[in-house]
């Protein structure tokens, strides 16, 4: 049996398993409420929380985009291990304060926090809708990246038997099916299985690459001969970009709506803390591994184009499979693991998108079962639009991640500052949000990505925070009683 035939069989079995999981999750549901559909009635234990966080964080971007970027940039992409870890470190700012409030007030979406914190104030509604819209745009972008990755993997690994467009449409339909039928339970359970597959697959692929090349030092020597710039010490702008990326990812990623919803969905706060303790090690077993895989592709595939570089992982799988039947079977396991990881991220994104648009942007009640139905319908429409865009890809996967993060990071004051600063009011937060978003989105529209290596989104966040600080100061001055101003004129 050829590799592409093995791939098709493996794919068929995997899709069948998803249908079964969706059916079991459907039977396990307790009611049709938004809390049950979107948060599995807040009952996820340590093992499932950990694996669902893992499978959600490590997506098509990690499995295709990160090797592609390592191929393009060389060893400086070791920064990816650092910035993936900075996400878990960043959660220290959010989780200990947000979790108790979320549990006590039965939050479902990120917007519930904004509503709780600023709801009665002038401009409170504006902050909620603004945050909801930014999160929606970021999530739609994220979904697009996953669909592109699905198309690449299915096409490359089945040797073109499933074309890119069919892969995108077919997998999108499958995700819609099991997310709509099974909700958060189906998503979390499949995430857990997919996390295990991904870990096993990546480890095996790296072991083959290193074994064949004669060890890590031999791979580094081969890279140095093929592209000396890939091993050289990075220059000043690249180092600044390294620091900027750690900040961008560390702050923006903790505001991922699907990550925030997993904070709500964990059974207890202690469960969540232990899951985050474990999660800190996963960049070493996943991001570092995919970085080394991308680097090892440098001497193997010379002069791939910018977009083509995102396909180094499937190309390596194809080479591996050609070495014998056992390798072909293992390559299929990696392929299914990669596909599973991408689908697990896409389904989480879709679930969050439906809930945010229905609850935060449209403003439907979280107690109403009709809200669940509306969320599902919205998810279908967004998925359809994302499929249309994914059929004609124009950006690298990493550029899509940067664009998403540059918008998402503008929500930071509404969460991180608002959680730690009692006196913060909605007006300054909305003003800062608008200013930061205009800077980040405006720069992206004009094609400006970075200034001296610093992401325009990080510059936008600094402007956002300065505006929040200044507006709060002005507001506090105007709220001082008349008697308080005597003597200051």
């Amino acid at each position, binding site marked *: 049996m050829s590799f592409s035939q093995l791939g098709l069989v493996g794919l068929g079995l995997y899709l069948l398993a998803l249908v079964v999981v969706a059916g079991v999750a459907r039977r396990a549901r307790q009611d049709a409420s938004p809390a049950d559909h979107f948060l599995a009635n807040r009952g996820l234990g340590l093992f499932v929380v950990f694996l669902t966080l893992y499978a959600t964080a490590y997506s098509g971007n990690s499995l295709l985009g990160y090797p592609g970027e390592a191929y393009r940039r060389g060893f400086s992409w070791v920064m990816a291990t650092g910035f993936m870890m900075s996400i878990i470190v960043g959660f220290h700012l959010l989780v200990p304060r947000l979790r108790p409030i979320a549990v006590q007030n039965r939050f479902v979406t990120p917007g519930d926090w904004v509503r709780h914190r600023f709801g009665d104030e002038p401009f409170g509604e504006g902050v909620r809708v603004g945050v909801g819209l930014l999160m929606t745009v970021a999530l739609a972008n994220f979904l697009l990246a996953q669909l592109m990755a699905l198309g690449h993997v299915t096409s490359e690994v089945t040797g073109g038997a499933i074309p890119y467009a069919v892969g995108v449409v077919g997998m999108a339909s499958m995700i819609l099916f099991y997310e709509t039928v099974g909700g958060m339970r189906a998503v979390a359970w499949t995430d857990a299985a997919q996390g295990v597959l991904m870990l096993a697959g990546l480890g095996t692929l790296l072991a083959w690459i290193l074994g064949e090349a004669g060890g890590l030092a031999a791979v580094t020597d081969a890279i140095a001969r093929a592209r000396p710039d890939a091993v050289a*010490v990075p220059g000043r702008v690249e180092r600044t970009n390294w620091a900027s990326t750690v900040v961008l990812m560390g702050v923006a990623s903790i505001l991922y709506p699907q990550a925030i919803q997993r904070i709500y969905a964990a059974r207890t706060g202690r469960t969540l803390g232990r899951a985050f303790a474990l999660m800190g090690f996963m960049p070493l077993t996943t991001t570092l591994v995919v970085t080394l895989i991308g680097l090892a592709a440098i001497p193997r595939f010379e002069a791939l184009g910018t977009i083509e570089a995102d396909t180094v992982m499937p190309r390596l799988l194809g080479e591996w499979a050609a070495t014998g039947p056992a390798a072909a079977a293992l390559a299929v396991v990696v392929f299914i693991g990669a596909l599973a990881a991408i689908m697990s991220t896409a389904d989480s994104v879709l679930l969050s998108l439906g809930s945010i648009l229905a609850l935060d942007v449209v403003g439907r009640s979280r107690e109403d079962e009709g809200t669940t139905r509306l969320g599902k319908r919205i998810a279908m429409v967004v998925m359809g639009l994302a499929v249309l865009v994914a059929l004609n890809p124009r950006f690298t996967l990493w550029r899509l991640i940067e664009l998403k993060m540059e918008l998402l990071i503008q929500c930071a004051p509404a969460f991180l500052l608002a959680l730690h600063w009692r006196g913060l009011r909605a007006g300054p937060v909305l003003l800062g949000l608008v200013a930061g978003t205009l800077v980040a989105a405006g720069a992206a529209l004009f094609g400006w990505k970075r200034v001296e290596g610093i992401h325009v989104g990080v510059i936008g966040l600094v402007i956002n925070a300065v505006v929040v600080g200044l507006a709060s100061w002005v507001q506090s001055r105007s709220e001082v009683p008349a008697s308080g101003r005597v003597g200051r004129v």
Partner: protein
Amino acid sequence: MERSPTSRQRLRRGLLVAIAVLYAVSIPWYREGGAAPEHWLGLPDWAAVAVVCYVGVAILNAAAWLLTDVDDDAPDDSGGGG
């Protein structure tokens, strides 16, 4: 011996500061840009330093999370809920 809440918080803060220091060291500010590296642990030396720093971050981060009290019954002092 069980640590008091205050000493746990102090230790947790110390770990978070140490993590920040490791992040600063992981970026090769200390080397001339474009220079050819030596090998260490099979990697260019500056990349190996970064990986070692990130291993340290993972360990300190795990310790910090185990010292973090995520108390679901903690009072809401965020200023919200009005």
